[in-house]
């Protein structure tokens, strides 16, 4: 449990968002109590617009009323603001930190966009090509797992760390995509390390209470697609 009375922590977010999930997992790892402010779908609150005027996106962490934006920056902030609580999210060694930052960056700059591209494909041919890109990206992470985990159960080693959070937040949506596309992304035979890791990650006590069930995500996606022909204006792009 985080020490110090009167610590005021709020998280502006929405339950389906993998980026919001990152912040929640980090806070859970540190045992930080926080108030979750669920945004209404399709409209952005005054608080959000004031707290994140540059991007107007969730998640936003409010610590003593001061906003921190961008999910992995929030994760790193949580790691630094509660250094004594729980386990370190980033390793101590500068080179290891650089490696973890590199792969988190890869996930955001390449892997996630390839997943978004897949979800937008219209033809079977385009879908196959896009799925191939996602799988190629995951294969790189399978290799990276070997290097970063040093034989332990997570990218962070013994426990969940920076890259685990960066990647694991997408596992729910990945399961939804597997169902809708018919493609198996994390195949136990082709990616045994990631397959084992995915199970461990989802079962982790800092994760399981906040990670939405794929069925719930699927229902959400269906409802969103049905309610708007135009691309939704809400925050849950991914």
């Amino acid at each position, binding site marked *: 449990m985080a020490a110090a009375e009167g610590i005021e922590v709020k998280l502006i977010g929405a339950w389906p968002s993998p980026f919001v999930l990152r912040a929640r997992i980090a806070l859970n790892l540190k045992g930080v109590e926080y108030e979750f402010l669920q945004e209404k779908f399709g409209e952005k609150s005054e608080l959000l617009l004031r707290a994140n005027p540059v991007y107007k996106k969730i998640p936003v962490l409010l*610590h003593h009323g001061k906003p*921190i934006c961008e999910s992995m*920056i929030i994760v790193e*902030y949580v790691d630094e603001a509660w250094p004594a609580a729980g386990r370190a999210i980033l390793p101590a060694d500068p080179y290891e*930190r*650089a490696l973890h930052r590199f792969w988190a960056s*890869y996930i955001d700059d390449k892997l996630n966009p390839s997943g978004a591209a897949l979800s937008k494909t219209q033809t079977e041919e385009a879908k196959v090509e896009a799925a191939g890109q996602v799988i190629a990206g995951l294969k790189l992470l399978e290799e990276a797992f070997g290097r970063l985990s040093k034989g332990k159960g997570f990218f962070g080693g013994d426990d969940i760390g920076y890259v685990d959070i960066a990647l694991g937040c997408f596992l729910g949506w990945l399961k939804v995509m597997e169902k809708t596309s018919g493609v198996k992304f994390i195949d136990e035979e082709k990616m045994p390390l990631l397959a084992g890791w995915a199970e461990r990650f989802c079962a982790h006590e800092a994760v399981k209470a906040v990670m939405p069930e794929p069925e719930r995500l699927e229902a959400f996606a269906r409802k969103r697609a049905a309610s708007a022909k135009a691309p939704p204006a809400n925050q849950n792009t991914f």
Partner: protein
Amino acid sequence: MAEGENKGLVLLDFWVSPFGQRCRIALAEKGVEYEYREENLRDKSPLLLKSNPVHKKIPVLIHDGKPVCESLIIVQYIDEAWPDRAPLLPADSYARAQARFWADLVDKKMYESGTKLWKLKGEAQEEAKKEFIEILKLLEGELGDKKYFGGDTFGLVDIALVPFTAWFYSYEACANLSAEKEAPKLVPWVKRCRERESVSKSLPDPLKVYEFVCFLKKVYGIE
């Protein structure tokens, strides 16, 4: 392999790259010696391809044989590997989060938006100009009356942004966009940064940058 052959610092870079310049500035701020290696981006060296197999891009900092990739990750690595001097990030965790946010914003916006200024023409270029001016004004607002983006100390955000100032001349020549006129509060900041040896030695001559842009335009068949 001879013992000690891998020891030391090597920076794989390309002279005009603002991303490479960030690393040069950070290394100079820390007063750290390194070997600068110019890459031919049309014929990338085996060392570059081995060191950055994922992106195959410069800059790459190789420290005792171990490669670090992505310019802002390299700058933070340099800061953390030499913690005893010239801190590039503030001590306070909230201030650090702000520094990372604005450095990330520069990364997300400046290069792409700036590139559009010389690559596009006509209405598309006008759109790009509007977008670029918005970014400049945003940065100007964040700087305010401070000496540097982080306050009194030169740091991550300054390092992330200042290399793009060498392209201001090119933006004016190609798109008739004067960064100085659109964001006048940035002008004293640019001057202040350029007075630092780490910056003045790392940034290219804006005229040479313009020559390079003209060369690229020929290559891309842009008038």
